[in-house]
């Protein structure tokens, strides 16, 4: 009897155990990843005691692995290559990067939040819901605790003190500091490097062949594109060419590539402070428009793509392809019009530019390109430290270094002496190797600097600290190598050369400033945190967003003007039925209260 009882109890226990180990499998795997401290006996830790290190302290420090949860990273796993070597030598740390972009997206973030552990170093894609919820849920460390920031982050205080203050006011109730924004900078004028974020960039060689026709408005591009297509009906590999090729996988609550048109007209989605809803707001005046306004820039964008399709200039795969497909088409020369300079740069390979073929900025005369401007309060991509971090001091030291001039240079362009150096007169130069490797080429890196390729070895956290167009205090030149005098004068390729001669400016940025075609965003500081929309607004927004997205694409591919207008009316009716006006009202209210009140 007794035996039997024991036996049954035993079986029950086993089955329960089985069940629970099965259930907790997912969770525990995560836990193991966090802050796995490597044992001191680890062979590599004592091998090179702080080579090339200024203070030489790291020799005494134990090797640790920091779990970096970055919502911006596009790489997951251990940081490889030259950047790994750099921080191993300086701080004796390794980075283990978790990238929600690569697996799970927003749901990965939600899972980490619900599990109550965000890792050691946390990078938020925005200072909206996720960041504020994490603070509320106690998942982030207060940097004031034990004087952490003062002791280990003096350079952050020195170089980005206003950003720290802003964060304290907005998110820490005036006392606690939970993080710091990215791209901290101060001063007037645009914050971009040589190139702006937006274009449009077209095939410069074809434009020249056409006799550089004047382009006043957006729709003037269409005729130019048509002629370009006639001039070059086949791409480098013999595929048909298109004026414009679009992709839909970046769409949020509207068609992203139509919204971009507003950014060539001095407007952007949302006010740049609160989370973007359905308004387009001027970056430097108190004007705004609803995204569905009849004379608004969003509909102008849709009309532009619709007209392009009517003229046979739009890639018919636009709707079904992904960004990577478009990028490949650019590489092959299948597309002539690029909304973004960084997209078309894929075509500007040394071979192509040497042959005189390449993309360059061709602005329209009424353009007002948006510049994000210098922001001493920091941008909305936040660096923070998880509340369960084991070595907050070491993490803070690392973060502090990223906010120093040295950290800016080395974390972006590699250790001094590899891709860049300082010449006899104290000015920065790009080395021969650098011209091959920068900005992100698969150039092999010598073993002494960490091996691998330059591209793979780059800082994979993918968040910035100081604004890279700020001036380095020692060299008196910007951090961005594209703006160094030595680089600007370094043997420009035929396309760049011809562009400079024709436009009378060294860089697109200079051209926009000189011709007053630019609208610089003014930083706003209100002391309040950005709004977090209530649940019903949020839900309406996503329902309306779905409708706008669907109809926008249908409109672009509409058969004729009549169908276009019919779809437009349907879109507006449906959106209004779902509460479009209420969302707009909410958006405008928070914008007027915060941004317009301080502009």
């Amino acid at each position, binding site marked *: 009897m007794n035996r*039997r009882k024991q036996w*049954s109890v035993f*079986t*029950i226990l*086993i*089955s*329960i155990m*089985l*069940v*629970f180990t*099965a*259930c907790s499998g997912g969770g525990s795997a995560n836990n193991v990843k966090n802050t796995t401290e490597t044992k001191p006996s680890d062979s590599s830790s004592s091998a090179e005691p702080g080579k090339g290190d200024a203070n030489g302290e790291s020799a005494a420090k134990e090797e640790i692995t920091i779990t970096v949860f970055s919502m911006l990273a596009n790489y997951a796993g251990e940081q490889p290559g030259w950047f790994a070597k750099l921080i191993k030598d300086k701080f004796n740390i390794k980075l283990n990067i978790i990238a929600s972009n690569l697996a799970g997206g*927003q*749901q990965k*973030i*939600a*899972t980490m*939040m*619900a599990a*109550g552990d965000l890792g050691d170093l946390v990078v938020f894609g925005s200072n909206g*819901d996720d960041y504020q*919820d*994490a603070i*509320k*849920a106690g*998942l982030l460390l207060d940097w004031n605790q034990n004087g952490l920031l003062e002791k280990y982050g003096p350079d952050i205080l020195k170089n980005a003190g206003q950003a720290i203050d802003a964060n304290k006011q907005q998110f820490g109730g005036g006392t606690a500091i939970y993080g710091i924004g990215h791209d901290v900078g101060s001063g007037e004028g645009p914050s971009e490097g040589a190139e702006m974020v937006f274009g449009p960039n077209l095939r410069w060689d074809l434009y020249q062949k056409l006799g550089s026709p004047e382009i006043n408005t957006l729709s003037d591009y269409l005729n130019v594109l048509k002629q370009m297509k006639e001039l070059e009906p086949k791409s480098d590999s013999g*595929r*048909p060419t298109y004026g414009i090729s679009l992709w*839909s996988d970046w769409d949020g609550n509207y068609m992203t590539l139509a919204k971009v048109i507003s950014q060539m007209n001095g407007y952007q989605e949302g006010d740049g402070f609160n989370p973007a809803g359905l308004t387009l707001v001027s970056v430097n005046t108190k004007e705004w428009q609803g995204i569905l306004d009849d004379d608004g820039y969003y509909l102008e964008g849709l009309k532009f793509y619709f007209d392009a399709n009517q003229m046979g200039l739009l*890639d*018919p*795969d636009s*709707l*079904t*392809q992904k960004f990577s497909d478009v990028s490949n*088409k650019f590489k092959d020369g299948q597309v002539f019009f690029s909304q973004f300079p960084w997209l078309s740069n894929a075509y500007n390979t040394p071979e192509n530019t040497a042959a005189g073929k390449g993309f360059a900025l061709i602005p329209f005369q009424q353009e007002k390109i948006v510049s994000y401007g210098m922001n001493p309060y920091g941008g909305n991509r936040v660096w923070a430290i998880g509340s369960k971090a084991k070595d907050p001091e070491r993490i803070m030291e690392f973060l502090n270094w990223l906010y120093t001039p040295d950290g800016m240079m080395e974390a972006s362009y590699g250790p001094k002496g590899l891709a860049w150096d300082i010449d006899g007169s104290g000015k920065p130069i790009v080395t021969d190797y650098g011209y091959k490797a920068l900005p992100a080429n698969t150039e092999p890196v010598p073993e002494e600097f960490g091996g691998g390729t330059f591209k793979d070895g780059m800082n994979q956290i993918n968040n910035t600290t100081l604004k890279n167009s700020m001036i380095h205090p020692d060299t008196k030149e910007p951090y961005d190598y594209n703006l160094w005098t030595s680089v600007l004068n370094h043997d420009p390729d035929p396309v760049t050369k011809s562009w400079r001669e024709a436009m009378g400016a060294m860089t697109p940025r200079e051209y926009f400033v000189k011709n007053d075609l630019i609208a610089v965003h003014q930083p706003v500081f209100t002391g309040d945190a950005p709004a977090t929309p209530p*649940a*019903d607004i*949020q*839900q309406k*927004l*996503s*329902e309306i967003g*779905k409708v706008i*997205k*669907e*109809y*926008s*694409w*249908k409109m672009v*591919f509409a058969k004729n003007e009549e169908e276009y207008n019919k779809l437009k009316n349907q879109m507006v009716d*449906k959106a209004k*039925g*779902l509460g479009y006006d209420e969302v707009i009202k909410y958006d405008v209210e928070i914008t007027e209260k915060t941004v317009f009140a301080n502009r």
Partner: protein
Amino acid sequence: MNNIKPGQVSRLHTRLDRSLLSRDKYKLFLMALPFLALAFVFSYLPLYGWIYAFYDYRPGIPLKDSEYMGFYWFTSMFSNDVRRQEIVRVLTNTFAMSGLSLLTSVLPVAFAIFLTEIRSTFFKRMVQTLTTLPNFISWVLVYSFAFMLFSVDNGFLNNVLLNLGLIDRPMNILASDSNTWLAMTLWSVWKTLGWSAIMYIAAITGIDQELYEAAKVDGAGRFRLMWHITVPGIMPTFFVLLLLSIANFINNGFEQFYVFQNAINMGRIEVLDLYVYNIGMMNSNFSFSTAVSLLKSIVSIVLLFAANHLSKLFRGENII
């Protein structure tokens, strides 16, 4: 048990029998226990999560600090005309595609019957392997396969047709709204045909061979054998599976429609699961998603019992 009197022997026997019996019962229960526990943990414990449907839940913030919403998420779906139209549209899609898949559920039966009639073992094996294989390919890969076949710019089909001179402009098959329901059903038939036939093939091998022999003696031909013996033989299996798929009427999957969706076919491809994903999960609105899944569970239970009742009415047997 120490002082047994002679008259008690028979009673002892029955007691022993009973204890043996109850011991067996015990054993069987213990054998089933791990599975009961699994069912409990994976099917009943999650029901606790329904509580999230009544709050404005944000990950990381404990439930007690979240705002209580009552039935807001349930009623918001039907709160105005446009939303009701949306729900009707989505449910139409769901029912249409589930209906089509119910209609096509006889295909695996036919396929299994014909397959077992094939005499060449090699050919039979090959067909079965080739038709079962697609079941193991994920929908994401199926889509990239579809994109290679049907894309406008460099798609296989368009290239062939253009080269043969049958068309002069490439067709955009993926971004079209015509026959979306049918196309989706065909994709899913292609993917699951061989896999669903396996169960029927097993049922066919279970049919008593003597029946066939007796029928042959009576002069029945091949098709008569199929129709009068094989078909009735696998009917019970077919009906069980049919009932289960009726219960799943409202959950007709999500991945397939998720990967094939685009703005043009959105109006017809958006089934309930995809709709919930698009407006709930995309924006981390877990509470709303939970509310919908709660409603879905209730609908599924009702459908299952209704189907079961019908089965009892018409065929005199039920499965629950």
